[in-house]
């Protein structure tokens, strides 16, 4: 099923400059694997050794997946995934 993936500022260059892309996956982890297939190098910005980086958050709709089932969080049609790295800038 089609999931909308929203990518923040600094990660957009890894997905051809797009801020929203469509992908499929039964879980967040599977979705990231498919994205890695389309955009090699994307997944390592977010995951290392099967675990989410602690300075990148992934939201399923408006919930942080760290409080759901992390990379095993199941997805359904119409869900929106937002990938949000920490921003330093108040500059």
């Amino acid at each position, binding site marked *: 099923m089609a999931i909308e993936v929203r990518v*923040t*500022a*600094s990660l957009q260059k890894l997905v051809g400059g797009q*801020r929203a892309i469509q992908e499929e996956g039964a879980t967040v982890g599977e979705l990231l694997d498919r994205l890695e297939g389309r955009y090699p190098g994307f997944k390592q910005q977010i995951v290392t050794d099967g675990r989410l*980086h*602690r*300075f*990148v*958050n992934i*939201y399923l709709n*408006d*919930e*942080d997946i*760290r*409080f759901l089932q992390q990379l095993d969080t199941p997805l359904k049609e119409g869900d929106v995934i*937002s990938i*949000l*790295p*920490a*921003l*330093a*800038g*108040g*500059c």
Partner: protein
Amino acid sequence: MAATVYIPMPFRRLAGNQVYVEVEGRNVAEILNQLGSRFPALRDLLYDKDNEIPGHINIYVNKLEIHTLQGKETPIADGDEVAVIPAIAGGQVLSPEQVTRYSRHIIMPQVGPVGQRKLMAAKVLIVGAGGLGSPSALYLALAGVGTIGISDFDVVDLSNLQRQVLHQNDDVGRPKTVSAKETIESYNPNVNVVLHDGPLTSDNAMEIIPRYDIVVNGADNFTTRYLVNDACYFAGKPLVDGSILLFEGQATVFIPGQGCYRCLFPAPPPPGLVPSCAEAGVLGALTGVIGSVQAIEALKLILGIGETLASRLLLFDALTMEFRQVKLRRDPKCPLCGDDPTITELIDYEGFCGAPFPGQDGS
């Protein structure tokens, strides 16, 4: 009996722009009732939720305050003058200059003279007089926040002028703190601007932050972000946080006990992974949006109105003009504010982030 009612300046817009209004009534209660019927918007300011005259409104009949007469039962004779004068409990009034300056606040029931006095008694620290610190400090100063602390170590650079509204052309090369103070004072001389020159570090944070009620974060690096987060938590101060990059911004409020920056991002990215504005760029006007959001959140905290952004992360995309929110939670495993804290005092932030505090590496 017909009395002439004097309408004070902040309320005149709600009374057909009149200074004096002729009103009929046998006593003060009837006069005020009539006034409220004729000008419903004024009614909200004349009566509180218990339908009594609020403590910050004094009513004078022929220059004598009604508490020294018969209160609302004070009889009215033909030709009496009834004056409605906003004050605060205790009798201290805003100066005529302040009543005019802040009239757009005072006429709102959610602010009023009491709220304006709260703003004037408030102390807010702005960390970083840069992209976010500039608009937030400016709007807080315009609102009449009594004490604004500015913490910065840097000098104004030409590239700052694309967005940092506290600084102007002639300020290039001058310390940002001094430039900020002059700008704020030129807008509102009522504000006491306190300068904290030099970087905020583990050595001075616990000496500076406790002096304020609220901290607004305009820092542009992770080392300072984690320091300010931890120090605000230890000092028990709300932290109004914001960040920006390229065309996107984020904002939230961290209230001690309801989640902190470490609950959101438990660890910083390796140095060099997330670009700064200098490396990737930022749309200047975006800083105005997020900085204004921060000012608004600080004002709401001071006034005790509305719903804060605590427990919500506001996300803004300027290219699509979309505002979204995601939930923020206190992480029970957070080392700072969780159930079993392991961080009980300020740590070595440079070691934690792998980057020095700005202003201390010769830059």
